[in-house]
């Protein structure tokens, strides 16, 4: 039986299923309160030493989380209520659970998003000690297992030994989660958003995290074709790695620029700048994820990426919230959000927030080679209003004597009106084709609706013809044209994109090597 999901970290894994959500083993009560007290002390000690061992092998972001867990566990104020309950006759597991649940409730009641989010950490801390208490040997996944469940805690990912393979398959989860980022950087195959529950959690399963599926109780034929895909993926990856360090060139010697798409400023920590031609798209929605970021937070995020890139261009897109990316206190609820108040439309409706982002961008510009682009432009007036706001904020910064620089301003080509009649935009500094949205609008097929996914193809002649005409318009008018949608990193789409005239693609960092390898195979 095959269950479809969304690939979060490409790769293949074959192994036994391990149920992340299995109830922990039953705690065996002790004879006396003194023994219960000792049991809890030992369990907390074990949890601390496991975490301390993990701190050694992780990056600084992950270490920060683990050190916080350790500090909480070592604080008597956390365990005090549990020990008091034990003294009055409670078992260690019930006492710990009640004490931590009370603490968790306190965090959940906070009116600040940040503190409310810490409830997840407290739950993680609670469960680490409960696992140590029950000494549930079975809570450790066998090596090479496929970890399945609703979601997975970061510590669970970090404490798992991935050196013998294995993978992750989640019902919930997100490709943008912390674990998904860790999985991509470690090359651990991961699929999220499985559409059906995993009925039988036994036996060997096949995880295809390149396309996004898991096969339960596979037939010999399914195993055979899975292993073929798996070794072909490994071969492609091995071959692709040799392309990573080199500039991208087609079979016939045409140079193609390959940049990366990033979301979180920390994404660049895992990328060698020498392997790409810059940042073709830095999304800023991530910064706007839970709360609206202030100017300083944005400035630091932009400066970090600009300094990392050095002389190479960094194209930052002003916030593209709305559509399928709601932001509390910013976006509005709409019946048809993809056709509603999103991208530049929302920014121009919320000038206080837009001006703040503009100031942060102007101030960050002197720290590198910045370009700024606006999403969802449909008519020239939107670009002109946005450019005028840049000029106003620049004048204000100059008057205050604040260091700044005006970056080149370009637009995304994703609304068909722009692709069909680009002549209204002859004054912009550059075009960047957003193939995901352009495709969904040309084909009238929502990109988040699996039922119409077959229509959502960038390779449809209508979409390719529009891209080709934008490229031609750009050439005639000296306006650079690039593409920053998912299609840029899709080996199947790359030949058609190059044939349409594109010579500048921006891809997910994980697709960099594969994209360069695919380019080398094209004759243009």
């Amino acid at each position, binding site marked *: 039986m095959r269950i479809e999901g969304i690939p979060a970290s490409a790769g293949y894994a074959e192994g036994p299923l391990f149920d992340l959500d299995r109830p922990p083993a039953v705690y065996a009560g002790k004879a006396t309160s003194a023994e219960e007290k000792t049991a809890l002390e030992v369990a907390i000690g074990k949890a601390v030493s496991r975490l301390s061992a993990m701190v050694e092998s992780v990056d600084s*972001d992950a270490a*920060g*989380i683990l*050190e*916080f867990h350790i*500090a*909480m566990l070592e*604080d*008597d*104020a*956390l365990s005090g209520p549990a020990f008091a309950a034990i003294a009055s006759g409670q078992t260690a597991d019930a006492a710990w659970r009640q004490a931590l649940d009370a*603490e968790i409730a*306190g965090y959940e009641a*906070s009116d*600040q998003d*940040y*503190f409310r989010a*810490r409830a997840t*950490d407290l739950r993680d801390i609670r469960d680490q000690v409960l696992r140590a208490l029950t000494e549930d040997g079975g809570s450790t996944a066998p090596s090479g297992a496929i970890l399945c469940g609703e979601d997975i805690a970061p510590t669970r990912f970090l404490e798992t030994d991935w050196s013998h393979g294995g993978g992750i398959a989640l019902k919930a989860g997100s490709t943008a989660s912390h674990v998904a980022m860790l999985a991509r950087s470690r090359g651990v195959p991961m699929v999220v958003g499985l559409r059906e529950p995993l009925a039988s959690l036994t036996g060997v399963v096949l995880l295809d995290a390149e396309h996004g599926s898991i096969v339960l109780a596979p037939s010999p034929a399914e195993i055979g074709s899975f292993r073929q895909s798996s070794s072909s993926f490994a071969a492609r990856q091995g071959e692709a790695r040799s392309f990573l360090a080199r500039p991208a060139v087609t079979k016939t010697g045409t140079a193609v620029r390959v940049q990366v798409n990033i979301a*979180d*400023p*920390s994404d660049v920590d895992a990328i060698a700048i020498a392997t790409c031609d810059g940042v073709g798209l830095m999304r800023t929605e991530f*910064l706007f994820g839970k709360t609206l*970021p*202030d100017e*300083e*937070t944005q400035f*630091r*995020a932009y*400066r*970090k990426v600009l300094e990392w890139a050095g002389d190479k261009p960094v194209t930052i897109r002003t916030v593209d919230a709305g559509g399928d990316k709601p932001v509390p206190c910013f976006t509005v609820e709409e019946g048809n959000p993809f056709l509603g108040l999103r991208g530049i439309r929302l920014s121009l409706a919320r000038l206080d927030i837009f001006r703040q982002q503009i100031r942060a961008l102007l101030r960050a510009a002197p720290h590198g080679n910045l370009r700024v682009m606006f999403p969802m432009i449909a008519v020239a007036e939107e670009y002109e209003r946005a450019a005028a706001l840049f000029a106003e904020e620049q004048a204000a910064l100059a008057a205050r004597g604040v260091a700044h620089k005006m970056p080149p301003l370009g637009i995304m080509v994703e609304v068909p009106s722009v692709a069909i009649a680009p002549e209204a935009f002859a004054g912009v500094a550059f075009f960047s084709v957003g193939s995901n949205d352009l495709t969904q609008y040309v084909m009238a097929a929502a990109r988040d609706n699996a039922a119409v996914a077959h229509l959502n193809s960038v390779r449809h002649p209508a979409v390719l013809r529009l891209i080709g005409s934008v490229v031609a318009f750009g050439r005639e008018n000296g306006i650079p044209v690039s593409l920053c949608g998912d299609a840029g990193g899709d080996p199947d789409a790359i030949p058609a994109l190059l044939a349409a005239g594109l010579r500048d693609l921006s891809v997910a960092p994980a697709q960099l090597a594969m994209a360069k390898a695919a380019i080398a195979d094209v004759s243009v």
Partner: protein
Amino acid sequence: MSAAAEATVLITHDVGLHARPSVKFTKLAKSFAAEVEIALAANGPWFDAKSIVKVMAAKAPKGTVLHIRASGDGADDAVRALIDLVQRDFDEDAGHVRSA
């Protein structure tokens, strides 16, 4: 010799006295013999600055004026060092817009 000291400082860190800064704050507090407490208002309630559970429970967001007081050996030094840590933004790397 016994002493007492008290001072206030504005929290400028993006999300306040949160997980990672709290770890640093309580570690530093614990390095002093003096009893150290924090509060969000001059009249309390006061929280033990050496307990991360209590410091987190204070839920001090950005823009909070933090009151710090100490009594006992090295009270002055303790308050000065903790004020300094908050003013240095907990030595957080500028790149950390994503917080632990």
